[in-house]
């Protein structure tokens, strides 16, 4: 359970987040959608305690992120932000292995190694494992970073626009992987720009605009023609395809 109460944040007096309240149930894929500048990234960064403690309160599985040790939180949630620029020269396997740090603190055991190998397999990285990350394409590097976050094996996985740079096949594979994690009892909070990925894979949608949460609910409730057209202030039409909403914008 992630509980957000009265969360506000501003950068040099410009409000980015205006007293947001939110409760996210575990065992679901929750997609965070909304136009640019809505505050989606800020919300995820505050939940993942990347930004310093703000006004308001965030609890993850009952732990207050402002007061709990960062190391303890790293075993509750993993976070992957949009900025994945890597100044270090690391091989893919080394990068992914750092995901085990909260569990082994630099002394990996067999379980840690197995988790790394599993993540390399899951993200189609076996053949790239000994390459330096800087030599990879954007999409390959993104997969390496995703594998690192997943290797952390936390109850919550928080991803900010993880589909950046991924081709359709790998984007689909990522969503399928997240669905498997969910089926195994995991919980995911994911910022998505492609509304069809949100409509097709998420269980729950949170829509944000201008620093506030404007709609929240099951996919069918939020992904509607009226709601989305209003949210993005542009004509959007929602139809249905195989029981899921389908978002069209070429109308």
């Amino acid at each position: 359970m992630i509980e957000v109460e009265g969360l506000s944040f501003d950068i040099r007096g410009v409000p980015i987040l205006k007293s947001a309240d939110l409760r996210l149930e575990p065992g679901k894929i929750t997609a965070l959608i909304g136009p640019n500048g809505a505050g989606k990234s800020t919300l995820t960064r505050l939940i993942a305690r990347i930004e310093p403690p703000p006004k308001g309160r965030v609890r993850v599985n009952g732990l207050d992120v402002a007061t709990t040790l960062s190391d303890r939180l790293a075993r509750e949630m993993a976070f992957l932000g949009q900025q994945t620029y890597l100044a270090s020269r690391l091989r893919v396997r080394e990068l992914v292995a750092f995901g085990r740090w909260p569990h082994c603190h630099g002394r990996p055991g067999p379980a840690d190694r197995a988790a790394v190998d599993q993540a390399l397999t899951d993200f189609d990285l076996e053949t790239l494992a000994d390459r330096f990350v800087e030599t990879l394409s954007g999409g390959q590097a993104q997969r390496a970073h995703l594998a690192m976050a997943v290797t952390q094996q936390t109850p919550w996985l928080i991803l900010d626009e993880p589909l950046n740079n991924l081709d359709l096949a790998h984007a689909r594979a990522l969503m399928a992987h997240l669905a498997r994690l969910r089926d195994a009892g995991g919980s995911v909070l994911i910022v998505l720009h492609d509304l069809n990925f949100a409509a097709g894979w998420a269980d729950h949608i949170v829509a944000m605009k201008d620093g506030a949460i404007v709609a929240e609910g099951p996919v069918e409730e939020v992904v509607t023609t009226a709601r989305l057209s209003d949210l993005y202030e542009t004509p959007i039409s929602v139809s249905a395809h195989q029981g899921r909403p389908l978002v069209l914008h070429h109308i």
Partner: protein
Amino acid sequence: MAVVLIALAGASLGVGAARLQAGDPMSALVLSVSRIPRMLAAVLTGAALAVAGVVMQQIVRNRFVEPATAGSPEAAAAGLLAVTLIAPHAPLWVKMVVAAASALAGAALFVVLIRRLPPHEIFLVPLAGLVLSGVVGAGVTFIAWQADLMQYVSIWMLSGEFSGVIAGRYELLWIGGAAAALAWVAADRFAILGLGPDAATALGLSPRAVIRFGLLVVALVTAMVVVSVGMIPFVGLIVPNLVSRMMGDNLRASLPVVALSGAILVLASDLVGRLIIYPYEVPAGIILGVFGAAAFLGLLWRGDRHVH
């Protein structure tokens, strides 16, 4: 590599104005008072400076930085100068503590400064460091000039050399060596820091704490080197870059190699400096300034792809 180091160390023991003879008590004295301390000083300096370079680079996430080009030695010299002026008869440990504290302040100032630079302009960071060095160095030079202490200051800041090393006057370098060893204990933390503050936080690390620890290592190493032999440029820049190119930045594996290579480089430079106009000497720092700079330029212009 260890073999190279041992060979160089042996050569270092053998080279000098006084000729050594087995069984000669005079030779034994030269060895224990002058040659062995000198060899150890070069090894410790090289290893510690190279490791401090890695630590600095992880802290600021920029390959083109080292303590020597970020104002730390100048700051340490400022501290030393202050002690020399205010309390000329202060014991060595006081000077050492003041030098370390001011080196820490200098390194911290650099880190604060570059935080305000645009993040992806990676070449502005070393530039800011060089200019900061220049400013602090000019301040120190001005005061030293007025106080007629230029002789000391130019050794502290400009060119380290090992000719003055004898037993009893280099042991502080062991503290620098110990700081470098501590950095190896925390190697994984520095490696994670290099992934960026966001990733480090997400993994449960406090970037601030790691940065503080790293600055402490950098300051200790810099201060001990400046106090004992004077600053040696480029070791902290060239060695980490070369090693990173060969084996990446997985620091737990690479730091020992970095330390070893640094020791080899400085020992070799000292040796060249002692032989090139034998029996006179050229400071190791000057030798490095010429050949080290040339090597670094080669590095910089070779594999274009690796330099983002």
